[in-house]
């Protein structure tokens, strides 16, 4: 019983990081119908930047976290400006945007390699004070609780923002139809840039939390999560924020349980992607995705 409970906690925990990563992914997709494949590179840079601020800058992690998240947001603006804006007027902007985002991913990854080196590095010990709580055979660290709490907080804040705030409503309007939004007087290009800002900031936050927990950061760490993030948003329903959260948790749990049952991590991705495949056959729009009412 303890064993199962511990495994569920492990899954919930890694799932919430996946969720946070995927929320940023799905936000851009919902607004632009474009996959931003540089998202994983921003995730990596977020983690490495926070590490640099803590290690070289001597900042506390509580300060380094928001600073680094802000920088990632600015990186998102840059991404939009360089990779997407010049292509937006073209006929096939979806496809060429995808390709130019891959180019940006390569540039960001090389920048990380040049700035931080290829070695696997970690946050200095005691960056975050860690308590370990134990009930019987179950153990939870305060870091895990903090990471889940921060992830949920950010995701709830985002949902509230999209539903209540004026800018959030504008994002949803642009997602629904950008031409109509423009006619209604919404500054569409500004809203898209703002969406990239939020999306990249969340991606960077996920990178820092990931690096803090696993104690290992390297310029290629985004690769392991890139495909999973994609699978998570398909599983949850493209463009759906609650779907991305649910998909992340489901993906994390399926991974952990697969490893626990088989005793090897080789089948982990195979099972996770088989689940994805099955969901797509049974519910092509994903768990929480709505059927498209009309084609734009």
């Amino acid at each position: 019983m303890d064993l199962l409970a511990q495994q569920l906690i492990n899954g919930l925990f890694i799932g919430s990081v996946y969720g946070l990563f995927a929320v940023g992914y799905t936000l851009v997709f919902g607004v632009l119908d474009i996959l931003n494949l540089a998202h994983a590179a921003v995730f990596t840079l977020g983690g490495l930047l926070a590490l640099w601020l803590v290690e070289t800058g001597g900042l506390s992690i509580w300060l380094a976290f928001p600073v680094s998240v802000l920088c990632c947001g600015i990186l998102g603006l840059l991404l939009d400006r360089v990779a997407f804006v010049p292509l937006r007027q073209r006929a096939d902007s979806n496809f060429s945007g995808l390709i130019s985002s891959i180019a940006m991913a390569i540039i960001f990854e090389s920048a990380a390699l040049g700035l931080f080196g290829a070695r696997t590095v970690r946050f200095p010990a005691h960056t975050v004070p860690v308590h370990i709580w134990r009930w019987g055979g179950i153990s939870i660290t305060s870091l895990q609780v903090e990471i889940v709490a921060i992830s949920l907080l950010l995701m709830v804040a985002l949902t509230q923002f999209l539903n209540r705030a004026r800018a959030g409503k504008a994002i949803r309007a642009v997602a629904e139809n950008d031409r109509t939004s423009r006619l209604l007087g919404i500054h569409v290009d500004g809203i898209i840039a703002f969406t990239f800002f939020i999306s990249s900031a969340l991606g960077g936050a996920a990178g820092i939390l990931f690096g803090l927990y696993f104690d290992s950061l390297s310029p290629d760490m985004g690769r392991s999560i890139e495909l999973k993030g994609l699978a998570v948003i398909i599983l949850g329903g493209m463009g759906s924020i609650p779907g991305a959260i649910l998909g992340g948790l489901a993906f994390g749990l399926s991974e952990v349980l697969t490893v626990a049952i088989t005793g090897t991590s080789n089948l982990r991705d195979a099972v996770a992607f088989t689940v994805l495949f099955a969901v797509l056959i049974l519910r092509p729009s994903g768990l929480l995705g709505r059927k498209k009412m009309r084609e734009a």
Partner: protein
Amino acid sequence: MHNVQRRVGMTFSLCMALIFISGQVFAAAKEVKIGFALSMTGGGAAYGATQKNGIQLAVDEINAAAGSEGIKIVPVFEDDASLPQQGINVFNKFINADKVSLIIGPTLSNTAQVTDRIAQQAGMPVLAVSNTAKGITEIGDCIFRDSLTEMVVIPNTIKVAKEKLGVHKVAVFYGNDDAFTKGGYDAFKQAIADAGLEVLTEQTFAKGDRDFSPQLTQIKSKNPDAIIVSALVEEASGIVSQARQLGIAATVPIIGGNGFNSPALLKNAGEAAEGVMMGASWNASSSLPLNKKFVAAFTARCGNPPDQFAAQAYAGVYIAYEALKKAGSDHKAIQSALGQIKDLDTVLGKFSFTSGRDAEHTPVVQVVKGGKFAVFGE
């Protein structure tokens, strides 16, 4: 005319006399050329640099002590650039142009697989001082090595863990998609079976994994006496720190292979690395008098303490010297003299060659203590 002739004659005889006398003084110290093929650039450059320091120290010591009776070593250093192709050029130069008596090196096993075949064909004795891959000494009867393989180090670690810590039931955790970690697992598996330990569970991970908590949770539920891990250092750090976070008690030791033998483990796993055990062929804190002298001399000269690669290279020069003293510069004689080396005192301990020309000396078991690698039980 006559006068000039006499003067020339006197000068001539004086010169002859001088040559004769100087010959008496200097010719007694016989000079022997050793070729050192090291990786001074490329991927193995960090190892090559420390090996060269160890070699230079040994050569200088031997030459200073040679006096008029002993032999002097003339070192010929060449860089193999960590590449097998360049290694071939270096070996050909040593064999055909420099006509050395013996070759020490190359740094990397990968290079040795190619270059040692050339030496074997030419009948040139080779002493490897850092190759641990399987099959190096099997290339032929000219190839020797003083670096212990995992097949020797790992059974010793398991034996010590069983006898000193009372380990009986173990969990095994290894990377099953990498030649090195899989090789380490095979060695552990053999050693566990030979020592009669019970394996409670075997779990695996893949290269690039960062989350090891599912497997470690399974391992924890079995309550093993020790966890045996075959991993490269990147994954090793993650495994060690996540195991402790999941509440696997510090009294359950984590035992690793050669991949754990890296300062990166201490840095990346931090406090969680305390108590981690691993085998090694040499440890700086070993209390052998020869070793203490070596560590002090090396530190004074290079400004930093030696590592395992420097120690094995340093010992290699002394092992070669032992054979050269007996055999002179004839290749066949050197080869048989090397084969006869038995219980030679070196910084690695009492050193002998096995019948398969592999190293035989007692390996050490290290434990992480106070953020450093210490010898277990000392």
